[in-house]
């Protein structure tokens, strides 16, 4: 890693999710040198944690695979994982990006054979499954992880467990003495693509996410539906492992609410509509989905998708902002209380499981490292794009995958323009 070469014609992309990967690939394919920085041990971001995309309901692994192939095949892209940006200083054409690269304790010799994890028994929460289950503290972040290289959790360092892992490795790939490294990268332009994170559902107190096992979030539901997830694709509710067949979806959970996120997170309606398909896929006519909504925002050309779900007899729509949720102590069922505004009927509706369609908020605060304007929700204001730092994807707004990729391509074009301008100045 010592030999990271960067010049003022280099584009640094921060964030290795779908937006950052797109930006990196697009820039490199026009002949620019790119350094792609990712804070976690693997590229892929939150898209990799989805079971299926809307509207075509294909698997994200497919799109990821194409992107990874483009990325791997391009010598102009340098990927650094476990890399965290500390500071960006300078101006367009001349940035200094300070980066800390955290130790993985596993080097390039790793073949992902998994022998190191064999003797290890210590377990830690699995962030890939939103901590719904545990994994060994020596792990491959996910099946689609890039790089395909194991990691050792820092909590193991100095314990006999780490030594066991080292002894089990047949490729001399484990280096327990690895230290954090500080790098300063030169860059002509920066693309900031740090994505989003789900709103902290525990803050929506009347819904009891922090108190009731069977109130979960939409991102967690993705993991339950995924065959690679903690339940191997079975929709089992957390309290008792029972199959959840009657599922409530609450829209705008934390969005469009002055107590929480003021903005519309734009993707959540489509996400829940999509998830009713998972219920149908698993249970056929025996499954039951109920969507509690303020209004359905199936933006743009997704209206068609919405109409199809509307026509599904197993899906009910109740126009209501749920007031609160209580738990039936005996059964663990959730009981949703509120008023159906179509007819003004009060309801106390019992369900097996409740999925909160949680909103999107920025994944990282760019203001901690660079002087860039953000809007009231913390998203980077595109118009403010100071000379050479450009927001991309969900760092700029609540976007679906399609729009995030478009945004990334647009930002990359701006970054390329800056770098080209620099090249011209130097050529004169």
């Amino acid at each position, binding site marked *: 890693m010592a030999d990271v070469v960067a010049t003022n014609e280099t584009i640094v992309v921060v964030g290795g999710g779908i937006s950052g990967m797109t930006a990196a690939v697009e820039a490199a394919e026009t002949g620019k040198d790119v350094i792609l920085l990712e804070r976690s041990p693997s590229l892929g971001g939150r898209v990799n944690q989805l079971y299926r995309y809307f509207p075509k309901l294909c698997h994200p692994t497919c799109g990821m695979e194409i992107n990874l192939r483009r990325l791997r095949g391009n010598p102009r892209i340098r990927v650094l994982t476990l890399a965290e940006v500390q500071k960006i200083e300078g101006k367009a054409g001349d940035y200094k990006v300070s980066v800390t690269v955290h130790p993985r304790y596993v080097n390039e010799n790793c073949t992902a054979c998994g022998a190191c994890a064999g003797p290890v028994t210590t377990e830690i929460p699995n962030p890939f499954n939103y901590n719904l289950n545990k994994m060994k503290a020596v792990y491959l972040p996910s099946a689609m992880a890039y790089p395909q290289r194991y990691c050792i959790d820092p909590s193991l360092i100095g314990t006999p467990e780490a030594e066991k892992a080292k002894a089990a490795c047949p490729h001399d790939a484990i280096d327990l003495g690895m230290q954090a490294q500080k790098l300063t990268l030169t860059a002509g332009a920066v693309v900031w693509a740090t994505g989003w994170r789900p709103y902290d559902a525990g803050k929506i*107190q*009347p819904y*009891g996410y*922090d*108190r009731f096992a069977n109130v979960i979030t939409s991102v967690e539901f993705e993991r339950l539906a995924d065959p690679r997830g903690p339940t191997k694709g079975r929709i089992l509710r957390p309290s008792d492992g029972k199959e959840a067949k009657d599922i409530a979806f609450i829209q705008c959970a934390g969005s469009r609410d002055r107590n929480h996120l003021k903005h519309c997170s734009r993707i959540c309606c489509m996400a829940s509509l999509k998830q009713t398909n998972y219920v149908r896929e698993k249970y056929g006519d025996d499954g039951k989905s109920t969507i509690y909504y303020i209004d359905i925002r199936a933006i743009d050309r997704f209206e068609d998708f919405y109409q199809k779900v509307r026509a599904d007899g197993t899906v009910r729509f109740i126009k209501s902002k749920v007031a*609160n949720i209580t738990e039936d*102590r005996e059964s663990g069922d959730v009981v949703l209380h509120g008023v159906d505004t179509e007819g003004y009927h009060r309801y106390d509706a019992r369900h097996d499981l409740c999925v909160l369609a949680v909103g999107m908020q920025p994944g990282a605060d760019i203001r901690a490292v660079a002087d860039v304007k953000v809007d009231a929700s913390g998203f980077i204001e595109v118009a403010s794009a100071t000379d050479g730092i450009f927001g991309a994807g969900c760092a700029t707004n609540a976007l679906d995958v399609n729009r995030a990729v478009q945004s990334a391509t647009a930002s990359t074009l701006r970054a390329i323009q800056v770098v080209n301008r620099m090249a011209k100045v130097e050529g004169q």
Partner: protein
Amino acid sequence: MARKEYSFYPGCSSERRASASNYMVSVESMCKKLDIKLNEIPDWNCCGASIGYAQGGELPRHVMNARNLAISEQVNKGQDVVATCAACWLGAKETKDRLAHDSGLLAEANEALREAGMNLTYKGEQEVRHMVEVLIEDLGYDELKKPVVRPLEGMKIAGYVGCQTNRPFGIAGESFENPKYLDHLVEIVGAEPVTGYDQKVTCCGGALAFSEPEKSQAQIKKIVESAYDYGAEMIVTPCPVCQMNVEIYQGQINKRYGTKFNMPVTYYSQLMTVAYGGSAKEAGLNGQIVRASRLEEIAAKNR
């Protein structure tokens, strides 16, 4: 000099012979053990309580509280105002909040004080705080634990928070749906809290206990029943109205629903007084309708 000093008013429910006079007795004992001095606001008046919202009108309601606060500013300079009653705290805190954000209302309130012949101007210099806030924030749980000489071992107690110390202001850092400060206080005095108590913020019915007994008793039934379900032998609360409603209607509820409720309902200050070594009398346990026998037994033990 005392460790802490506060400007204070007990409110109507804690007056002599009123329903929560035993709350006052126990607060005095507790404060003595904790070396806290409460300086009563002279000639304090009603906070407006529920009547102020129902018929009193906005200005009179705020003038009532502004008067208490203005006297406090004059007499107990530099001290925070502390209320033991949840309604007093809520009313006074709301007034302070409103008058700070509405200069027109502030001018009117001060004019009313002048018209009443009081040589007073409300300035908004002092904070308005509930006794529980003072205990938790100024002393802290560790300090509150130090004087415990008679831990309430073996008792399981449900912390019933109610609404007024909880919404809309709440105790800093607490969740509105699952506030835990009473559980912490129960732990500190050596008893076991009911951590899963799911009716801890259910409304007790408030003043509707008089006008809508059926509805409020349905609420109270849930509150008491859930405490029994979790194996609690006592309910503890920070609010005189909660205490009154949840305690005294148990007999009527038993008639209405055929239940056999007999659950003592006490104040946090009574638990603390007993745990700090006070007698049953010092803890005001003689003011209970449903006797807190276990607490009395512990209070009768030698320290």
